[in-house]
């Protein structure tokens, strides 16, 4: 019995043994595959760590001073609407040699002699012996740079230097502005777009046109000489989208010279200078009356006085021949002061103030550069309403004037003046009602075409020019000086306005030698400026400008707009 039981045990052991052997075989195979996978895992882990390291490491160059300089000076280019450079950062490369790092001095000298045969190599060998870094070639040509870099010697150290250049010199000085030695914008677009210019390499396209800017500036410079003006300004704006095609303020300066300008006469007269502009405001008075439905161009004003008093001050007509009975249209054409006061009084303070605010005339305006003037604030009252309705005691900038005239003539759509070209078409919001533009535009045209009008010198054939003149005395401490601000706000073609051109002359004088050509087809010439008014100064400038830029606008801009 006991034997049987022993056999049974042996049989059991035999089974156990077989089972263990089988399990052992499986383990060996499994471990081999696991080992291979483990090796692969380790390799891939190392590779991944290496990749992560490569991805996260900073370039050696970034710690180098050389690149720091490059980054500090990095600044995007600025071009006009046609892609012409207005501001550009250009680089030049200086080549230095660090003798300690030279791999093979003989070979390097031989190669350098081949590329730069004119250099004094005895002196260079001396420098090699000194073991100190030296500049080998400054502002190297592209061709030689390529040749020297092909040598692949570690000791050759190129250093890129960046400079901001303004190829148009004075032409856009007040728009582009200046940068300081640390590449920080200190005026104009260089200041307002400082961060964008530094961070984004993408070229910034402006709305201005280099050729039109040049032609307008030429005329302003010429007439500054003729009328001995202290300065002048002009803005040419697209009335439908607020794009500024030209903005000139004189005197200007060459941006490449990087002068520290402290003279106040170099103020941006187009955007920063705040002036009382006189009769150009009468257009807004009439427009406000039409907008509010109080006045129509045919509305008659009877028994208009030649002189009225308000708060102890007198308001009189410039032209004593002006009739006592006038329609609203005739008041604007003949630039009647008392008539404008009566229109203003009919509108009332609140509505007049609201209209001026809607046109952005008496509050500060958002613009692409920071040099924007803030109109002098004042307390509205009966006398203020009276003077403001003919453009006195109320101030604004030339930019705001151009913007307001654009809104008046474009169908009453709100626009924002801009210098930066945008790809998206801005939404147009109508802010004026009662067909203001349809009623005002023909009146502006009559100011240029009729004998009673004050702007016949701007009647250029084919351009359908309309506009309003403004002659104002400059304010001085405690009153007004004899010096004048002569302005002409023009729009053309007045049948379907596309452009607003404002010209302002700061303290012009009459010129007894200047010859005027009447533009009524008579061929009559007139020598000498008879009166120091906008009609004889600013209007003549606008006429000359439109004659020059008109063909460009008619041919080129007709396709664009």
């Amino acid at each position: 019995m006991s034997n049987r039981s022993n056999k049974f045990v042996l049989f059991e052991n035999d089974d156990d043994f077989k089972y263990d052997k089988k399990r052992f075989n499986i383990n060996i195979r499994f471990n081999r595959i696991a080992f291979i996978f483990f090796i692969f895992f380790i390799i891939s882990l190392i590779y991944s760590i290496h990749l992560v390291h490569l991805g996260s490491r900073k370039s050696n160059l970034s710690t180098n001073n050389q690149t720091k300089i490059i980054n500090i000076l990095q600044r995007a280019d600025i071009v006009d609407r046609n892609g012409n450079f207005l501001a550009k950062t250009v680089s030049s490369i200086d080549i230095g040699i660090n003798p300690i790092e030279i791999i093979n001095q003989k070979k390097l000298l031989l190669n350098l002699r081949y590329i730069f045969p004119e250099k004094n190599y005895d002196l260079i060998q001396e420098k090699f012996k000194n073991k100190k870094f030296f500049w080998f070639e400054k502002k190297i040509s592209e061709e030689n740079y390529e040749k020297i870099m092909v040598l692949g010697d570690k000791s050759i150290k190129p250093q890129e230097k960046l400079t901001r250049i303004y190829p148009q010199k004075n032409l856009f000085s007040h728009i582009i502005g200046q940068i300081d030695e640390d590449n920080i914008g200190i005026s104009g677009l260089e200041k307002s777009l400082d961060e964008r210019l530094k961070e984004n390499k993408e070229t910034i396209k402006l709305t201005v046109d280099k050729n039109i800017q040049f032609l307008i500036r030429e005329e302003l410079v010429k007439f500054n000489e003729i009328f001995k003006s202290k300065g002048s300004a002009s803005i040419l704006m697209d009335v439908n989208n607020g794009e500024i095609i030209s903005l000139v303020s004189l005197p200007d300066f060459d941006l490449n010279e990087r002068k520290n300008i402290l003279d106040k006469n170099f103020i941006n007269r187009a955007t920063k200078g705040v002036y009382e502009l006189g009769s150009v405001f009468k257009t807004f008075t009439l427009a406000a009356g039409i907008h509010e439905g109080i006045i129509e161009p045919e509305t008659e004003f009877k028994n208009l006085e030649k002189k009225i008093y308000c708060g102890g001050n007198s308001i009189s007509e410039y032209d004593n021949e002006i009739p006592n009975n006038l329609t609203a249209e005739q008041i604007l054409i003949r630039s009647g002061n008392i008539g404008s006061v009566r229109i203003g009084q009919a509108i009332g303070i609140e509505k007049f103030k609201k209209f001026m605010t809607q046109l952005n005339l008496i509050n500060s305006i958002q613009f692409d550069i920071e040099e924007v003037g803030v109109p002098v604030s004042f307390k509205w009252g009966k006398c203020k309403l009276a003077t403001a309705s003919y453009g006195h005691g109320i101030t604004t900038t030339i930019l705001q004037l151009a913007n307001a005239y654009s809104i008046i003539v474009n169908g009453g759509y709100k626009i924002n003046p801009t210098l930066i070209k945008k790809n998206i078409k801005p939404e147009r919001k109508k802010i004026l009602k009662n067909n203001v533009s349809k009623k005002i535009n023909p009146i502006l045209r009559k100011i240029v075409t009729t004998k009673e009008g004050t702007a016949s010198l701007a009647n250029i054939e084919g351009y359908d020019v309309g506009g309003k003149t403004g002659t104002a005395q400059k304010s001085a401490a405690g009153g007004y000086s004899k010096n004048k601000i002569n302005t002409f706000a023009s729009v053309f073609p007045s049948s379907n306005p596309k452009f607003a051109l404002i010209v302002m002359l700061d303290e012009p004088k009459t010129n007894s030698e200047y010859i005027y050509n009447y533009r009524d087809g008579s061929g009559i010439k007139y020598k000498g400026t008879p009166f120091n008014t906008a009609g004889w100064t600013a209007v003549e400038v606008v006429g000359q400008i439109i004659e020059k830029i008109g063909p460009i606008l008619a041919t080129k801009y007709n396709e664009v707009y």
Partner: protein
Amino acid sequence: MIKFIVFTLLFSLIVGTSLIKKSTKDLDDEIYSTNENLIFLENRFKDSKLEFDYLSSSERLLKYQKLYFENSLQKKSLKELNKIKISDNEIIIYKLTISGDDEQ
């Protein structure tokens, strides 16, 4: 047999990976050099454009006009400028206006 298949599979995977890596590296190099060339050419184009802008500035063109074509170039008024359109082999002349509305 299984050993052989596993070995062949692993070997082919290794070879395949290295071949793909090699071709990727070549592509990377090619992309890098093309980018570098592009930047270089772009800079060169911009420099040439700058030179062109400077040499063809309105100021210079007027100077050249006075120097070489003072009597041969005449200023034209808007009235003298026309727009020509060719439609069905017929030339149509439009008067040019500032408003952009064609007048036949």
